[in-house]
């Protein structure tokens, strides 16, 4: 439908006004404060050994979380949108839970399960695996808090697109896997794209839960968000903002990559 011109302009103005107050101006302020000391200072700030360690740790943890949650997210979306079973509302609710629980409690719950005095503590210690206060713990916390995104993005799209084509393919003799790969997956590409973007952004920006399970050992279990907090505590606000700008850059890059891939497909 083509919206009438006055309506279109009104919506555009409202949208932009909203964004200005609640997004553009705050983000502009962050970038302004970041680059106020100059690009050289910012570069120095993000290339200290601690910052480089934090950067790679954040990338590593987020990459794992994204891959894992994308695959499982699509699986869960299929179960919700294509499956025929009762109790979907229950799975829906459980999927949304990771957010409703305060981040500090997320961290503590992981310690209760995987920590040295936790449910699996003794067994893990015997096997020589350290989860809490080590990278696996950070990964677990990040996977936990980013769980809902891909499934929540993909499920409505799956429902919207409908399964006519999939049924047709099945009738023509395609196997389940072929149907999925060639029909379903392309139809949910934008859902996956935005799901990945959100998951990445959230994973790199996660602070509370990671703060509890990481142990904050500089150069080892310190993520970029933890580095931001440490710099803030040390009155290095410029350094804190610089590290935040790095996080913002990663998020922007992810969006760029995901939308470029999708755009190319549309033109194909």
């Amino acid at each position: 439908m083509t919206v009438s011109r006055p309506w279109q302009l009104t919506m555009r103005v409202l949208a932009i006004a909203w964004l200005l107050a609640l997004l553009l101006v705050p983000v502009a302020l962050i970038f302004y404060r970041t680059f106020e000391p100059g690009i050289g200072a910012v570069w120095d700030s993000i290339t200290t050994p601690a910052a480089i360690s934090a950067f790679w740790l954040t990338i590593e943890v987020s990459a794992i979380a994204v891959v894992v949650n994308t695959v499982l997210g699509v699986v869960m979306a299929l179960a919700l949108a294509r499956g025929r079973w009762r109790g979907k509302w229950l799975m829906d609710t459980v999927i949304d839970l990771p957010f409703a629980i305060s981040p500090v409690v997320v961290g503590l719950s992981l310690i209760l399960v995987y920590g040295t005095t936790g449910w699996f503590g003794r067994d893990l210690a015997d096997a020589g695996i350290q989860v809490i206060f080590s990278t696996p713990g950070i990964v677990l916390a990040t996977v936990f808090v980013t769980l809902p995104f891909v499934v929540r993005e993909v499920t409505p799209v799956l429902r919207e697109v409908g399964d006519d084509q999939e049924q047709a393919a099945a009738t023509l003799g395609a196997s389940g896997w072929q149907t999925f790969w060639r029909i379903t997956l392309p139809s949910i590409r934008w859902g996956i794209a935005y799901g990945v973007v959100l998951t990445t952004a959230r994973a790199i920006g996660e602070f509370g839960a990671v703060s509890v399970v990481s142990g904050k050992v500089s150069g080892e279990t310190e993520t970029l968000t933890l580095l931001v907090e440490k710099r803030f505590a040390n009155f290095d606000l410029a350094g804190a903002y610089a590290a935040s700008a790095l996080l913002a850059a990663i998020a922007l890059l992810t969006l760029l990559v995901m939308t470029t891939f999708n755009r190319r497909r549309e033109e194909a």
Partner: protein
Amino acid sequence: MSVIALPRRRPAVRSGALALGISTLWLSVIVLLPLAAVVVRSLDGGVGDFWDAVSSRQAVAALRFTILVSLATAAINAVTGTLLAWVLVRDRFPGKKVVNALIDLPFALPTIVAGLTLLALYGPNSPLGIDVAFTQFAVLLALLFVTQPFVVRSVQPVLIEVDREMEEAAISLGASNRTVFLRIILPNLLPAILSGAGLAFARAVGEFGSIVLISGNVPFDTQVSSVYIFKLIESDAPIGAAAVSVVLLLVSVIVLALIRLLGRWGARHDR
């Protein structure tokens, strides 16, 4: 042997069951297991201690404020998020790509930076002359900032995929824009809007880092449940903290379920 080719339904059913099985296992290990640990911990002192912790005046006040402000956040996001998604998908204006790129930033930024920035913009030293820091409104502001992307990103992919044929058919039959929107587009978007709003609500309920900086954390006034829980942990009352967390979760579950029921009811009435 029959000559008719029967539709091969079995692979779909098998993979459906497989998807369900994997999903259940995954959710149980990653989500339910840690949450179960919290529930068990909350009952370490027996039901009496549990009840004492969750019925304390601060706990109740914090919970009420948290739920109300989170509902407001979700409701406002449902409207603004849909508006933004519409403008981003269906409109064209210079800088649209930039705006689209910035939408996710509230997620990527550490909550402390978000809090600091909002404090600078809307606090005592505000260049805009607006000082709402340390009020209930400040909490709403912080929540709107950090939950921005949810509804927008939820609606965008659906809006992109929506079948324009129905719209065009309706218009050619003489339906007004309003009718087309309310009866054709909105029902298609509703699951996505609700999904995004539900996530925004859930996140708002658990949000800690940005609120703790800008709200002042005054009990009975601007203290949210997550801050109260943090207080309990720092005061060596972990059982109380677990108990209040469990109640917070339960209430969130109820509200989320209601949001979904609302959606299903709304969708059914329109078709």
